[in-house]
């Protein structure tokens, strides 16, 4: 099929505006997925995605559509995640497309990620098709959304397609617009292979599966290929497309989006954003690719069972192949043993990686309190990057600690401006300026410490604004502040996993809160347990868990003896699995609870 009848587009939007639901409809209408196979959120294939109702990974699908002009078109769709942590997925998807459907929820209107994603698409020079979705909702407000498109996004309102992914309105119109408005892929004047590697997964039988967008040339099994960044040669074993499951094809042609399986064994051999080219007639210039993403949130991840260290390492390597934005490096902790310092894009990303390690790789793990990277300027002029509170040098040799800051954009309805300003202040933010978006809403631009927006900032905005506020942020360098190290001691011994770097003004509150939480989750022991929070050796909070009073089974007779013995064995095993710190057994759940609560 000719490249003129190929369209590559992605679906972008703020979280929950209906990207995946709309993708479902497109799959159904084009007959890509038979009605009987169709299930809601078809593309959200991971259990985690289904359970949480959000998209985590981008999902490519190749569809065929007979348009009203009588021709059959190849439509390559990429569904993307809406959450800010996964903005990287969006930017990579954009690089593989010529156009983007921008979905706006008819009841919620334009939100922070809508703005951010439209900016990204504009920067890439993509054709944008605005879609106002969920018009079936009784509280949908089409005129307002149209005004927002114009006022906030500078998109002509008359271009908007009215749709309901849920009830199936406007679907044909969207497909026709894709064909008529989005340009066909650019034609190159040579036939050299240029395939943009925009994602990859790992299959334990077949090795690395690279996701490619063919810019020029064709690929088929048997072809010799190489990665342009390192010139490593491979032989193509299989090519194919996503329907959405992997389906082998005889070849991939210019304009196609699909996958390539070559004899690539290890995750480390490929780089997302690289260009795959042929070995016979290689391209001379790689495709633009994309800026490498830097992880922003760090946490120590440890196996509960020290013997699992190697397993965990292997699991992380595999996960990294499916997700190059996740990084890890071996480290050790007094309390937790050998593990890894991991870097994530954000807190949701961290949660998801941990959950996947637990589920897909069956790893028993715990993670320390998330930290950002601090720049520490020592009195001798030396500068350190510290992503683990343990590596903070002694305060006597520290000149200043600089923390990463972000520029944060918060869209809120007018009536919530003042509680939001309060929230920004509580989070140590400084309001930069306020911009009126339309008659009902403003955009607050502020500068905030990254550490403060990580945990519950977004949730707080949602709850203050009853769901009508949203935020987006971009990194904005570092800024010095009064930061201290908060330690937690159990029976006098510091538990390194609980140490954190916090602002002086917040340290006491957090210390008290941590100590109280620990008191709740440390089970009673044979001895009384003392819990203390300290800043630089000064105790700022203390709690204690009194000694256990009762640990006895009421009944044990002939029939129960084996069972009872096994219960005792289990109890003993359980204690072995706990981390013992200063004679105190701290169960894994306690670490998780505390690390979660903070």
């Amino acid at each position: 099929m000719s490249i003129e009848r190929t369209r590559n587009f992605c679906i972008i939007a703020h979280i929950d505006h209906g990207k995946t639901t709309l993708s479902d409809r497109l799959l159904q209408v084009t007959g890509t997925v038979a009605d009987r196979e169709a299930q809601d959120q078809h593309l959200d294939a991971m259990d985690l995605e289904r359970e949480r109702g959000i998209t985590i990974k981008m999902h490519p699908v190749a569809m065929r559509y007979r348009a009203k002009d009588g021709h059959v078109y190849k439509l390559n769709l990429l569904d993307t995640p809406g959450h800010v942590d996964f903005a990287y997925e969006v930017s990579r998807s954009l690089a593989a497309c010529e156009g983007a459907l921008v979905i706006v929820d008819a009841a919620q209107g334009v939100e922070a990620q809508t703005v951010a994603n439209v900016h990204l698409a504009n920067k890439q020079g993509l054709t944008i098709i605005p879609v106002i979705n969920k018009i079936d909702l009784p509280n949908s407000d089409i005129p307002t959304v149209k005004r927002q498109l114009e006022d906030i996004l500078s998109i002509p309102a008359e271009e908007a397609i009215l749709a309901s992914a849920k009830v199936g309105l406007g679907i044909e119109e969207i497909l026709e617009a894709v064909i008529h408005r989005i340009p066909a892929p650019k034609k190159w004047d040579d036939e050299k292979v240029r395939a943009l590697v925009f994602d990859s997964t790992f299959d334990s039988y077949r090795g690395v599966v690279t996701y490619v967008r063919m810019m020029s040339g064709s690929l088929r099994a048997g072809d010799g290929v190489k990665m342009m960044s390192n010139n490593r040669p491979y032989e193509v074993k299989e090519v194919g497309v996503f329907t959405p499951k992997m389906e082998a094809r005889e070849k991939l042609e210019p304009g196609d989006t699909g996958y390539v399986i070559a004899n690539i064994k290890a995750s480390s051999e490929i780089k997302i954003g690289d260009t795959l080219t042929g070995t016979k007639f290689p391209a001379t210039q790689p495709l633009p690719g994309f800026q490498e993403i830097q992880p922003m949130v760090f946490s120590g991840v440890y196996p509960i069972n020290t013997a699992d260290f190697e397993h965990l390492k292997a699991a992380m390597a595999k996960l990294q192949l499916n997700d190059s934005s996740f990084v890890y490096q071996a480290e050790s902790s007094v309390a937790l043993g050998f593990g890894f310092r991991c870097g994530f894009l954000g807190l949701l990303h961290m949660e998801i990686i941990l959950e996947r390690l637990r589920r897909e790789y069956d790893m028993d793990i715990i993670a320390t309190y998330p930290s950002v990277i601090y720049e520490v300027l020592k009195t001798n002029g030396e500068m350190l990057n510290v992503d683990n509170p343990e590596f903070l040098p002694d305060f006597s040799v520290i000149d200043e600690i600089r923390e990463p800051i972000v520029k944060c954009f918060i869209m809120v309805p007018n009536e919530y401006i003042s509680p939001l300003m309060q929230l920004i202040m509580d989070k140590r933010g400084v309001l930069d300026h306020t911009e009126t978006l339309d008659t009902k809403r403003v955009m607050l631009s502020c500068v905030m410490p990254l550490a403060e927006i990580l945990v519950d900032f977004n949730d707080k905005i949602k709850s203050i604004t009853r769901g009508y506020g949203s935020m987006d942020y971009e990194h904005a360098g570092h800024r010095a502040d009064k930061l201290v190290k908060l330690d937690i001691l159990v029976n006098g011994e510091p538990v390194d996993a609980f140490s954190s770097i916090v602002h002086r003004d917040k340290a006491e509150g957090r210390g008290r809160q941590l100590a109280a939480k620990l008191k709740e989750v440390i089970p009673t022991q044979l001895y009384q347990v003392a819990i203390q929070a300290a800043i630089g050796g000064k105790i700022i909070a203390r709690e204690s868990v009194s000694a256990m009073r009762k640990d006895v089974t009421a009944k044990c007779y002939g029939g129960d003896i084996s069972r009872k013995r096994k219960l005792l064995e289990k109890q003993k095993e359980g204690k072995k699995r706990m981390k013992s710190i200063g004679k105190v057994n701290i169960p894994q759940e306690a670490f998780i609870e505390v690390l979660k609560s903070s």
Partner: protein
Amino acid sequence: MAKNPIRHLYVHIPFCAKLCPYCSFHVETAMRNKSQRFLDALLIEIERQAGAFKIEPETIYFGGGTPSALSLSQLEFLLPRLRERFDPGRLVEFTFEINPATVSAEKARLLRALGVNRISMGVQSWDDSVLKTLGRAHTAAQSQRTFDTLREAGFDNINIDLMFAIPGQSHEQWMRTLEKTGALQPEHVSAYCLTYEEDTEFFRKLQTREFAQDENRDADFYEITMDALGAAGYVHYEVSNYAKPGRESLHNFAYWDGRDYLGIGPSAFSTVGAQRWQNVPDSRDYADRIFAGDSTASFTEQLSDATKLGETLAFGLRTNRGVPVSAITPWREQMREFRELGLLENSNGRLVLTRKGKLMADAVAEAFV
């Protein structure tokens, strides 16, 4: 044939009129299974075992379920035939578990006449509101009448089962139940802290947080129990058991001492030497296997010397006899720690749990497994 004769015999009668929401014993409510065929199966099993072992019981224990659910004629059929199948010459204690709702004066007299000399009665509480929470079929008044009936029938060795730390039960309510029990002066009292057993309705309610457990509250219940029953003249001779001097349950002591015992009937456990097994926990399946000549065991376990020793120490420690100091040499360090914590004490060359230690028996016993 094993050399040592079996001195302790258990018979499981799994039938109960209704299932209590906290109970995890093997219980069946389908009374049609409580049939002649079932009784025949019991007799065949004991006959078989008498072929394999020398059975000369000092104690017999009919437990359940509710053994008193057997009808007069069933009792008249079963008990004499059972005794014909072994040598009852050494028998000193013959216990029958009963539910207060299922014993008439006639049944009590019959049991006595058939040689039963000890009754264990599931009273649980003398408070009707607590009985209601427990889903018991009887009232406190009924328990009182049954107790009198048993005394009138000539039983001079009666145990009363009680339960505490029941959802909604106050310490005062429990104290009144203990006082009332003390006033009745049964020879033996078993006072169990409610255990939330998996696969019971109570357990589910605990998980859904309809019920809550509190270590301190439970510990207080234990202390109240020890004080009240001690004051009423009972010896606290095992974590949950109290007896008038000389009225300890010989049968139960056999378990805690690690002696051999044979269990007959569905779900019953036996331990002979290094061998432990359990019969299938289903009365139909059990009878089918008996009549087909198949093994009734659905679980078997070979106990290593170490396991057996560990068990004997772990369970022996629950009793007021404790364990000989000489036996715990491999665990000396840990035991010293327990002594320092005030959980264990040395009494005439034996290690016994202190009052505080009785509430922590599992933490100590854990060392031995």
